């Protein structure tokens, strides 16, 4: 009995032992570091283990050999290994490149919005930068590469004039996004409401062959697709009244939107005196309409119309005579219509079609009056240039088509054609571009653009190359090269029809590091202009110039909770010989050093967002040319130093309503410290007096209340600030 029992026991133990084999081993990365948490499983069974902190594992199995292990770990390529019971199995795992974010070609570009992988800013960021007036183009000024220009509109990028940065909406060029230029004042951008767009790219150079006619930069805006629900917005302030509705069809397949804004500085100027004197306006009316519709399974049609009206009448003391005033009056209207269609005609294809119509009319009158504003015509050479009547009507039509083919392995090729038909000229362009993922850490974009002007009967070929190399899990190096062309403004081409296009070459090298809500970016560039417009001694393209510089950007929204800030610094060295410059000079819109700091803090308890922006720029040069184009005087203005402050308090006025309202009370002060800003000087005819070009008033105040119904901007604010 005893023997039997013992036999039983031995047998039992034997079967148990026979079934239970010990599998042991260690999982490491290529450097030999243990991978804690790696999952080891024995194929064909539920047996397995998890690696400990040294990467070691041990488990028992009752399965029969041969043993094949599958090892997986997040961010690594799944590995397999053969194992033998009781003998340590070593498993070395390699990083899985597909777990890393794909390299993004990003030299020269800052992008914002959900659609862009390399997003640096969101629409809400744009709104909440103090002092930008909710204007995308203005907010871009706090990014490196852009100058702090306070006396005229436009983005002055890397030594380029304001006209050299062009704006694109859904792929097509907006010929004139600003209202008629006012002397010594920045003008308003008609098509810049951040809530219209969900993709914003600000490129300071090296951009894609799909875009042309911007010698220095591009502001590429993509309008939103269908809204998620119907909504309405109203807002009122002493300067602005806004009302808009956005209606989503019941079937969710189309939407119709209408919004209108009226702005006037009349009442504001009564409370806060301005120089120049605002006799009329500046007053603006902007009406926008949009229609968006899903077509077929993949298509979306977008129609956007913008009608703008502006009038201003300004009086400024004349520099040559204290008893006289300069009068400037303008009435301008513009209509912009953009129709675009995007679809996926096949699994690997994308087709973008776009068309735009633009109509501008401007009636501008410059003249002189006595102090009582009665017109006068003083005699003398000093005054002859101060009178003009301009009546401009400009129509243009554009069409663009781009076909993209997505290839296996993440490559893509695209080709497109474009026509810009104006009253004076027709510009035809064709372009092709390929994006090649040569390696998981290397992406290359090669493209070329060809443009032909019917008026000058000449064509230009612009090659563009861009490269991105991943240097670490979170960092990459980008490089870009490209040639860029831009036609002179219409009035010069009327004078000299065979004028070739201005030409610039960009060379850009960039390092970007992004980690946990922090971004560091450093970019060096060299830009060479080998053709620039000269207006003296004759109108031709014999001008030239160069710009080089170094820019830094740092943004951190993680270190302090509810606090977000960015710092950008730009160094710029530039000379150019253009327009009426007698010799190559540092242009009067180029400051060598520019620093911007933007900080935002959200105080959750009081639902208030406080934002501050501070910009300083070294003094800009100014020149006084004589009538025969010699430099009579030159110098450097004092440094620019401005602090803007903004508050936005969010609340719900009618929380009991079914569609709870979302209301923002916003207020702000620009140039809080009251620093005197000098952008340049106006000179008298004899050169004996100069008068500074400065802000129309020391400080600028803003207060307003905006209420939206049905749409919850909450998420935007919340997510930007949590």
């Amino acid at each position: 009995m005893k023997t039997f029992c013992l036999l039983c026991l031995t047998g039992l133990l034997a079967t148990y032992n026979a079934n239970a084999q010990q599998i042991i081993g260690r999982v490491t990365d290529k450097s030999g570091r243990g991978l804690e948490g790696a999952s080891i499983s024995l194929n064909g069974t539920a047996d397995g283990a998890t690696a400990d902190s040294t990467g070691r594992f041990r488990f028992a199995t009752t399965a029969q050999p041969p043993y094949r292990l599958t090892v997986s770990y997040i961010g690594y390529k799944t590995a397999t290994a053969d194992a033998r019971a009781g003998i340590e199995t070593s498993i070395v795992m390699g990083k899985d490149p597909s777990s890393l974010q794909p390299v993004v070609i990003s030299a020269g570009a800052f992008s914002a919005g959900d659609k862009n992988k390399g997003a640096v800013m969101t629409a809400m960021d744009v709104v909440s930068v103090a002092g930008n007036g909710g204007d995308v183009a203005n907010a871009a000024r706090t990014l490196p590469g852009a100058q702090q220009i306070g006396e005229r509109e436009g983005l002055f990028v890397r030594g380029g004039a304001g006209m050299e940065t062009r704006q694109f909406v859904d792929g097509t060029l907006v010929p004139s996004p600003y209202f008629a230029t006012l002397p010594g004042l920045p003008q308003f951008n008609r098509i810049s409401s951040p809530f219209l767009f969900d993709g914003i790219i600000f490129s300071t150079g090296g951009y894609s062959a799909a875009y042309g006619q911007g010698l220095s930069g591009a502001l590429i805006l993509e309008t939103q697709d269908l809204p998620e629900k119907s909504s309405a917005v109203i807002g009122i302030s002493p300067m602005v009244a806004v009302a808009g509705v956005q209606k989503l069809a019941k079937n969710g397949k189309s939407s119709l939107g209408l919004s209108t804004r009226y702005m006037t500085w009349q009442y504001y100027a009564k409370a806060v005196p301005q120089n120049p004197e605002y006799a009329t306006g500046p007053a603006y009316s902007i009406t926008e309409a949009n229609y968006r519709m899903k077509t077929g399974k993949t298509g979306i049609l977008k129609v956007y119309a913008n009608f703008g009206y502006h009038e201003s009448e300004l009086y400024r003391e004349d520099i040559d005579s204290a008893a006289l005033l300069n009068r400037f009056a303008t009435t301008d209207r513009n209509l912009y219509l953009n129709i675009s269609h995007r679809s996926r005609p096949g699994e690997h294809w994308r087709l973008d079609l776009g068309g735009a119509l633009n109509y501008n009319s401007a009636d501008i009158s410059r003249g002189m009056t006595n102090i009582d504003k009665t017109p006068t015509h003083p005699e003398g050479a000093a005054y002859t240039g101060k009178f003009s009547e301009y009546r401009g009507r400009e129509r243009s039509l554009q069409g663009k088509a781009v076909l993209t083919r997505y290839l296996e392995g993440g490559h893509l090729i695209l080709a497109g054609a474009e026509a810009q038909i104006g009253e004076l000229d027709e510009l035809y362009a064709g372009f092709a571009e390929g994006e090649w993922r040569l390696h998981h850490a290397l992406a290359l974009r090669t493209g070329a653009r060809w443009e032909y002007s019917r008026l000058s009967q000449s064509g230009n070929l612009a090659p563009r190359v861009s490269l991105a190399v991943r240097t670490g899990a979170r960092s990459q190096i980008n490089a870009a090269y490209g040639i860029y062309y831009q036609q002179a403004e219409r009035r010069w081409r009327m004078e000299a029809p065979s004028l070739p296009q201005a030409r610039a070459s960009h060379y850009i090298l960039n390092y970007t590091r992004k980690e946990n809500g922090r971004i560091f970016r450093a970019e060096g560039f060299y830009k060479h202009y080998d053709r620039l417009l000269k207006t003296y001694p004759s109108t031709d393209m014999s001008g030239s110039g160069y710009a080089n510089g170094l820019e830094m950007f740092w943004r951190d929204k993680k270190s302090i909770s509810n606090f977000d800030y960015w710092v950008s610094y730009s160094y710029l060295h530039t000379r150019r010989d253009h327009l009426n410059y007698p010799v190559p000079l540092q242009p009067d819109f180029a400051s060598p050093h520019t620093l911007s700091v933007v900080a935002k803090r959200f105080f959750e308890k009081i639902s208030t967002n406080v934002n501050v922006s501070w910009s300083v720029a070294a003094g800009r040069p100014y020149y006084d040319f004589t009538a025969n184009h010699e430099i009579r005087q030159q110098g450097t203005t004092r440094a620019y130093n401005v602090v803007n402050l903004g508050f936005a308090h969010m609340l719900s006025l009618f929380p009991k309503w079914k569609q709870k309202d979302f209301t923002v009370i916003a207020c702000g002060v620009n140039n809080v410290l009251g620093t005197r800003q000098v952008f340049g000087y106006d000179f008298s005819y004899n050169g004996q007096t100069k008068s500074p070009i400065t802000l129309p008033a020391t400080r600028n105040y803003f207060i307003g209340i905006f209420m939206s119904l049905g749409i919850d901007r909450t998420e935007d604010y919340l997510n930007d600030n949590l």
Partner: protein
Amino acid sequence: MKKIITLAAALFVFITAHAQSSPLEGAVSQLNAAQTPAAYQELANTFQRQASADTKSWLPLYYAAVCNMKLAFLQKEKAMALSAIAEEQIARAEALVPAGNTKDMAEIYTVKSFIERSRVEADPMSNGRKYGPIAGKYLAKARQMDPQNPRALYLDGHIKYHTPALWGGDKDKAKALFSEAMQHFNQPPASAVAPQWGKAECQKML
């Protein structure tokens, strides 16, 4: 002799018990006690292995997704990769839930909502607008399918608790939801392997 018999009997019991006790049951009870990322990682691996051995049952995949989702909340820097794994696992689990079983589907949708929420919390600034509404949609679906699901009630409370008052956050409402969830957590689970996690977290909020 007696000793040997006892030993043999004990060994027999041990071996058979070892063979019969469901590994899923064991892992589920470990999940109830898990707290550290290492513990959740180990369980995620265990459930995943059980899922590959048992391709017919939704529970192992469901639990693997739960573990990876918990890890995504605990390890924010890896949250996007972890939530992607969880999302893939829960989708496979969903396909295995027998048709018409709304209670189980509510569990699935609750986890789906948790996964989206983990993405929001990983980086509210870039993810909130995209994943917040999806999380809300899944949660509403789960709540509708099973109004008494304690995990859905708990998540509802969690969101209400962490949202500022102005934008629909409500600490009192959150507390009511936590209490309601707690009542249901206190009911014994339908089986030893039925979803039962979340009680400790909910308790902590009260």
